[in-house]
């Protein structure tokens, strides 16, 4: 309970003597969002391209195994 009050009563960076630099806190949030977007896009792109790289034979083998497991 005391910890809860501590968070609200005291300013957020009571011991951080460092000046983070004008604007760089907001910028960080923006930068992190952009990086996340790029990261997700890269992941989805490689997922997408990997689907096309599987040849037909292995695809049908994969389907056989799946149907065998369901029985």
């Amino acid at each position, binding site marked *: 309970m005391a910890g809860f009050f501590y968070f609200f009563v005291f300013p957020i*960076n009571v*011991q951080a003597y460092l000046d983070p630099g004008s604007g760089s*806190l907001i*910028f960080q949030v923006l930068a*992190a969002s952009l990086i996340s977007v790029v990261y997700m896009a890269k992941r989805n792109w490689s997922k997408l391209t990997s689907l096309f790289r599987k040849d037909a034979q292995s695809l049908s083998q994969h389907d056989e195994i799946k149907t065998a497991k369901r029985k």
Partner: protein
Amino acid sequence: MMRSKPQNENSSFRDPAGFIFYRDGTVYRQLNQIYSANYKKLISSGLYNLLVKKGLLISHRESPNNLSPDGKAFQIIKPDMIPFVSYPYEWGFLQLQQAGLTTLKIEKLALEHDMNLKDASAYNIQFVGKNPVFIDTLSFETYKTGSPWVAYRQYCQHFLAPLALMAYNDLRLNQLARPFLDGVPLDLACRILPVSARLNLGLSIHIYWQAKLKADLQAKEGSKTSQIKMDKNALMRLLDNLEETTANLKPRDSSTRWEKYYTFTNYRPTSFEAKKQLVAKMIKRVAPKTVWDLGANDGEFSRLAAQAGAYTISFDFDPKAVENNFAKLSGDNTNLILPLVMDLTNPSPNLGWAGQERMSLAKRGGADLIMALALIHHLCLSNNLPLGHVAKFLAQLGKYLIIEFVPKNDSQVVEMLSSREDIFSEYTETNFLSAFGQYFKLLETKLIPGTVRKLYLFKVDHA
């Protein structure tokens, strides 16, 4: 019991959480009351033990509180000693890169323990041989859920921008850390970096966009700092990106004339081997604990000192030579060599507030043995330094000296003087011995077989 007066460390004053001081030559760190909760958490969370075990953080011993200079300590700690203090403007590219990656590694491990680094200054890192070690035990604080990293801009200025400048422009730009003690301002980095650097996504975000949007975002940020929230996962991804961007930087392949020095010097292989053996014997005779190898190039002779068990600083003014030396250390298990960039004709001065925060080279001096091999002709002839000046300077740096005199009839000197007027009538072996005799006692002379060069072993003698 009378104890000597404590002395506060001149560079340790910005952080209200504590400061470094000395008593009887031993270094201590005072942790003030304000730091008590964070220190307890650093220990209890297991973060301290983990970082020390991985060799990332300097270890310390808790000491009695009555050692405190002002009686206000929550805890006094005694950190392990660093054999030789060095600064970012003395490091090569690889060293600065390793220092940056170490900082990020520590920040990520800290977050996993619900803690956080409150600054990311390059001066928080010291090198012990080839290993970067974080020395600021006061830098850890409890992670406040949702807060962005307060040290982000500092990381970009101290590490990312200078590394980018060295990679895209020139290795010599490590020297920008001298005038810019809080790292290279991002707007300045933008102006110097070539346009091709903007093709690097990480650099364009963390350097270009951060610099360009500064004015706009400053207005928006205002007093709402405490309300800016950032998810922990987003912060981790930001750190990952900083890590990737830092690690992928690589200097362009540009060779300097010093790089191929040992391949194209005028030593026959047998003479070179003989020189190594003669130097090794002299080192053995002195049995030094510390050695400064001046003009060390890629550290060929520093390795002889390290093999004899001495902690060796390998100085060279060519950053590429320092890179080559550091790169070769991956195969070295003595960990007794520290390569540094240093121009002996313009060595690191006193810097910072009141000229007292960062020590000059001379202030850090006092090696048991100085080596000045294949160096004196570059100082006296290329740099027009009188023999007496060089002798006086070297006598201030250490107790013993191994120096190679390169006379005028040496083929390298003949080539050096071929395109300029020979005004160096004073540069003779007789004058060399007389100049050095003012400050040193001669112990041994050895001719390097197959050359006209001689090795001299001197001991400082102020009589």
